[in-house]
């Protein structure tokens, strides 16, 4: 048992740390990037590609690194530490995850090299207005065209990275009722295909998302990722579990940075003639932040380790447990970080608020703490009853 990184992993960590630390050294640069047409810096995105980060989880035959959740964790932690806004999660983890776990060899060969090169961004169009955290709650319809293709009608909301994606991966219902676990399909749809209407907007954390309507959108047989004979939900669940592991690492990065920022701040901020960090009440709150952070870090490791577990039941329990801890820690560290900063924590000119906002959104993504606690309890928890 060891928690050490290999030389290759250390290299990935160093390069992504260096690149993002430079790119996000100044919040004014971030604000300017948000005003670019894509909603983030095109130049930064090119650097992700250049450093090979966009190829991390993909097979070497497609030009990827053939690496796993641990390497993804290193990138996500750096993204969290810098409150970075490039669509790595939506393109590589979510979209890329569907391609890895669900797509045919031909689809993979056609799409993955472009993703790795940074010339094709992906988005997973799954969330619907009513579906909350239920992945099976899908009303968007996919009707067979009789030739192996489909026609898609429906609406998706808050599709992460949806406004700038070149290719959308759409979850739609081929058969069954609204919340049936069977009858779902996964389809490739061009971002600007006929019948696709996207309304993009900024999200609370500085990222981008879109509401997307699909009206008579035609999908050829070659663009069906999972059809009626496959288990689209299993693929989706697997990818979402990987995404939860990834945002757990991102949350740890953000919490760690906020913790450091806060401790540094209270050591220098003077009131009543002394640094406020000399007060025990401030010290103990900082320690509680540290404890919450370290407990979250431990569970992010667990999630990373379990993300590639094939036993879906075991994987889901661990991932749910991790999401509960991450969510609770993120809420505590985020709120305490702002509180200990006082007024300056409330401003957009200062980084603390950026971390807090991203942490808050992470808690709302892919099931909040309550949702996962319920799932875990229903699954019987982590420890078996005594015999």
């Amino acid at each position, binding site marked *: 048992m060891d928690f050490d990184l290999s030389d290759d992993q250390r290299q990935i960590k160093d390069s992504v740390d260096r690149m993002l630390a430079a790119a996000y050294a100044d919040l004014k640069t971030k604000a300017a990037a948000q005003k670019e047409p894509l909603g983030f810096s095109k130049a930064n995105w090119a650097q992700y590609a250049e450093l090979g980060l966009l190829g991390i989880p993909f097979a070497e035959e497609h030009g990827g690194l053939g690496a796993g959740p641990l390497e993804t964790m290193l990138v996500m932690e750096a993204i969290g530490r810098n409150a970075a806004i490039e669509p790595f999660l939506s393109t590589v983890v979510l979209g890329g995850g569907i391609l890895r776990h669900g797509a045919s060899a031909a689809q993979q060969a056609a799409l993955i090299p472009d993703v790795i090169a940074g010339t094709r961004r992906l988005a997973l169009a799954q969330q619907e207005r009513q579906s909350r955290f239920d992945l099976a709650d899908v009303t968007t319809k996919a009707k067979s065209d009789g030739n192996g293709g489909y026609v898609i009608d429906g609406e998706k909301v808050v599709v992460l990275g949806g406004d700038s994606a070149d290719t959308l991966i759409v979850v739609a219902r081929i058969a069954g009722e609204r919340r049936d676990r069977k009858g779902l399909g996964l389809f490739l749809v061009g971002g600007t295909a006929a019948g696709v209407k996207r309304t993009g907007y900024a999200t609370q954390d500085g990222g981008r998302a879109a509401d997307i309507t699909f009206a008579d959108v035609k999908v050829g047989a070659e663009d069906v990722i999972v059809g009626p004979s496959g288990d689209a939900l299993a693929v989706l669940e697997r990818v979402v579990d990987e995404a939860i592991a990834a945002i757990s690492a991102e949350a740890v990065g953000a919490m760690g940075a906020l913790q450091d920022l806060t401790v540094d701040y209270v050591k220098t901020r003077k009131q009543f003639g002394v640094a406020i960090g000399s007060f025990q009440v401030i010290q103990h709150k900082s320690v509680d932040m540290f*404890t919450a952070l370290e*407990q979250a870090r431990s569970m992010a490791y667990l999630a990373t380790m379990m993300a590639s577990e094939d036993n879906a039941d075991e994987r889901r329990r661990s991932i749910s447990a991790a999401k509960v801890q991450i969510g609770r820690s993120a809420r505590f560290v985020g709120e305490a970080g702002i509180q200990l900063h006082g007024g300056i924590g409330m401003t957009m000119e200062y980084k603390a608020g950026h971390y807090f906002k991203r942490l808050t959104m992470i808690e709302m993504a892919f099931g909040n703490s309550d949702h996962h*606690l319920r799932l*875990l309890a229903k699954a019987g928890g982590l420890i078996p009853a005594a015999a």
Partner: protein
Amino acid sequence: MDLRFTPEENAFRQEVRTYFTTEIPKAIREKVEIGEHLSKADMVAAQKALAKKGWAAPHWPKQWGGTDWTPVQKHIYTEELQACSVPPPLAFSISMCGPVIIAFGTEEQKKRFLPPMYNLDEWWCQGFSEPGAGSDLAGLKTTAVKRDGHYYINGQKTWTTLAQHADWIFVLARTDPDAKKQLGISFILVDMKTPGITVRPIQTIDGGVEVNEVFFDDVKVPVENLVGQENRGWDCAKFLLGNERVGIARVGMSKQRIGRIKQLAAKVMSGDKPLMADERFAEKVAAVEVELKALEMTQLRVLADDAKRKSNMPNPASSILKIKGSEIQQTITELLMEVAGPLSLPFLPDEADFGTGEHWAAPAAPAYFNYRKVSIYGGSNEIQRNIIAKAVLGF
């Protein structure tokens, strides 16, 4: 990064578990399992069974009966000890005074005291806390005055756990009244049969008499019983308190208790369904499991780090283990009491038998009351926060 145990480590776990479950008397382990008080004879029998195998003090040097296990093996041993409900070797000698004698004592002291500690032929208790010296241990007032080759000890110790069984007590006493605070304190071994020692039991809120006051009235102790240098006893105390945090997380024990709560809650009915099927209760249990899993992973991280650092100083992050470990243990006692519900009300100080067949319910409330102590002893959780603030966050 690889968070799995090796096949050799898993085999070791199996070996340890087999020994614990076959060689430690079942009746004793069942008492631990349901949280009943153990008699002195129970604890002696359990430790002797461990000593027979050479497992009474794995972290001691081999020469004195210890092992050359890796940190991971020691961790597995502790985890299995707790998981199998084996009473741990007496902490006051094996984890506290023994290591101090090994680190600071003379050869004569080692030969005289370590073997009977190992076999629990002599029972030890800890003379640290005083009415005016709790978290501020260095504020202690008990004095030891040197005269004609002896120390004469006067003062009062308190919260002395199981002093009623003890043959020996290790005492922190002030040997230089003019020195400030930590300076001028010595670490002295005292035979409990010495004239002038009075033990008065203290009944705690759980109804038990685990702790005592110990009074010293001109207690005459040979100077050979000083450990380390005179006036340098604080070094011993700091060393000992650092060791006290090892294994404090009690992950194995908490896992075992959660498993038991689930077993009981699957039988106890709440309305028309088992309590375990009550969503609110099930989610409370799941929430503790999450915290415990995180703690287990944190403990493994501390362990991996310790194995690499090869230093005797505990990782400052081990303070987290104390804080979270104690909070989790307390929550678990609360959950067990919740399982017992109204059956937790009867106060039965002298017998665990409930008389109605609900044997398991009687210790639930006492355990809850008793476990308030775990966030107080061994450096209260507030002191642990001070330690982290200073050592980790640099305040």
